[in-house]
């Protein structure tokens, strides 16, 4: 009885959120799953003016069998790895540099965060210019800058490479998000009670040992949230791609762009299937996290 009473308030507190998630997430996902098993590939079929049928997992097989969609998936994988590694690296490095109570910390912090304030629409306009593919005499953008500062060997075609074009898109993404990861880590560093560090020091621990055994373990929840936040942004990468290149540029296609393109052509079933494939990818990635959480609870 007391137990039950204890559980009522938290459940009440969380239920508005749950109801909203039920409608705005699960009801919509359910609809998508249904849609993805139909042959609704044109507007007339969507509105019911032309017939459609149930095709089971046919759309999924078509997608996975298509060279172009595999290209998009490969791009997504490459982008995700670069984006997450790059953002975590710079975010941590900056937080670490700033954690030592620098003078003018506020200015550095605000300016490092600034790119996040620039919307993708705006970032796209300027990065389009920076990632200009011209080299040598006609070079502009970053290639021109590289020449000027004596790093001419870094010149390259950026988004024009079929295999690595997407890597160029990761640059503005890292530029935008590193500041946020810095903020997370900074908050993480500062959230660690000073007594912990002091105690370690009193025990004669070296600075790196303090990081290894005191700070890093404390930071792991922060790192995990950063990973999940970055991961969800990465899977949905869309705004940035279409504003730096365009919806139809082959070298920089990604699943979310394909999804928008299929929707634009009235192919709602294939678009829904892509959405569900992305969700399945998320499930695969999120399982380790859940196992980790469950293990933590048992302790």
């Amino acid at each position, binding site marked *: 009885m007391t137990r039950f009473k204890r559980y009522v308030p938290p459940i009440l507190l969380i239920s508005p959120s749950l109801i909203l998630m039920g*409608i705005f997430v699960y009801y919509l996902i359910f609809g998508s799953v249904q849609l993805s098993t139909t042959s609704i590939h044109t507007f007339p079929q969507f509105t019911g003016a032309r017939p459609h049928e149930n095709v089971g997992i046919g759309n999924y097989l078509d997608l996975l069998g298509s060279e172009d969609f595999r290209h998009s998936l490969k791009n997504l994988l490459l982008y995700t790895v670069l984006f997450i590694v790059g953002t975590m690296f710079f975010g941590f490095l900056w937080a670490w540099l700033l954690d030592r109570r620098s003078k003018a910390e506020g200015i550095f912090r605000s300016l490092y965060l600034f790119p996040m304030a620039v919307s993708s629409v705006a970032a796209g306009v300027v990065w*389009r210019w920076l990632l200009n593919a011209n080299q040598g005499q006609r070079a502009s953008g970053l290639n021109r800058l590289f020449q000027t500062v004596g790093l001419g060997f870094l010149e390259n*075609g950026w988004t*024009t490479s*079929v295999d690595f074009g997407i890597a160029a898109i990761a640059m503005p993404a890292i530029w935008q998000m590193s500041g946020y990861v810095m903020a997370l880590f900074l908050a993480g560093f500062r959230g660690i009670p000073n007594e912990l560090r002091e105690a370690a020091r009193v025990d004669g621990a070296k600075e790196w040992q303090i990081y290894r055994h005191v700070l890093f373990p404390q930071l792991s929840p922060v790192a995990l949230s950063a990973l999940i936040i970055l991961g969800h942004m990465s899977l949905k990468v869309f705004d940035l791609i279409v504003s730096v290149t365009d919806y*139809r*540029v082959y*070298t920089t296609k990604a699943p979310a762009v394909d999804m928008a393109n299929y929707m634009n052509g009235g192919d709602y079933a294939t678009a829904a299937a892509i959405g569900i494939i992305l969700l399945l990818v998320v499930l695969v990635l999120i399982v380790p996290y859940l196992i980790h959480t469950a293990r933590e609870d048992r302790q």
Partner: protein
Amino acid sequence: MRRTRILAALGAAALLVGTAACGTDDESTSGSDNTGDTTSATEVEVFTWWTAGSEALGLEQLQGVLTEKYPDVEFINGGITQGGGSGKDLLQTRLAAGQPPDTFQVHAGKEAQDYIDAGQVEDVTDLYEKFGLNGVFPQDLIDMLTQDGKIYTIPSNVHRANVLWAAIPVLEAAGLPTDNAYFASVDDFIAALEKIKTATPDIVPLSVGGTWCQVHLLETILIAELGAEGYNGLFDGSTDWNGANVTTALTKFAKLMSFTNIDRDSFDWEPPMQMLLDGKAAFNVMGDWVPALLDSNDLVAGTDYLYAPSPGTEGIYDFLADSFSRTVGAPHKAGAEAWLDVISSVEGQTAFNKVKGSIPARTDIDLSSFSEYQQSAADSFKSDAIVGSIQHGAAATIQQGNATNDAVSKFTTSSMDADALAALQAALAAAYAG
């Protein structure tokens, strides 16, 4: 629908807290709530992607004519720009969700096909009679808009896609003549590009922008190589996309692409055109919305730049047009009809096109106050064979246009070798099959 309502009510209940706080930031929505349940005949919600620039000014002109002709019809602008410059995604979502605007903008021709097939736009053949449009639009244009004896959209303005623009100082520097001698065929044009490349290696012979500009270029090559009839046949099955003449056209397209700027994919059309103005490029194939940019740079036709039908397309008018429809289930039918009257009227087309730089679809409008370019374009529009643009929705459905863009981008970002070319041709054939 019912189920969503129940869910929505549940959601609303869950949201009491949230919206109580939100209610304070009431925005001035002064009746322009586009979801209003009122079914009064005294308004019309017009959905366009003319939300900026001279297009938006032109829209205001049309609004002015509406107020004059139909003082009791209130104009509501449902327009928006989404990525890539149109609001099609929102439009399609609204249509699919059963919340249609009264009338919406669509490229005249095949782009309207999906809306017709989906039963989302009404037959407006009767309005052509009522407004007396049958005699005043060119017959070629009306034929192209007619499907099984019915017409579904009314055009407001016409642009020409197949125009070649050239920078005179650059031509002179390369020792090329500045008359139209080498525009007679694509081969002549390629020879001219070769000369520029040899004479002035620092100059980009042919500048081009991103994927849509490349498709735009490709369609003019197809027109040149296949002729008006052969080109039109691509869309009704009488010309084979797998044919040898298409292969030739694609080969020449690949050749032309080899003369272009490699940074093309990061541009819309303006920076490549700016290269001509800056003396960094010689030629560009682009639609006739270019003069606005040239004018704003104080350049003069004949001394600074010249324009001509794109190579090999003399006597053919590759058209694209904006048009409006009447939506099935439109809340304000009378308003939609008033709007269609306005955009097809002499007053409406005069006021709109003067500002936008396009030409009226009507051929009975006095053009003496229009620009010199507009007058010459209008003359061609009357006398030339008219074909429809692929990129701009006149000849290709939305899906076909999308597939063309995908295939062309895949091709032009590759090494453009024989295999890639075969893949391009196969993809195009598949896109237009059936």
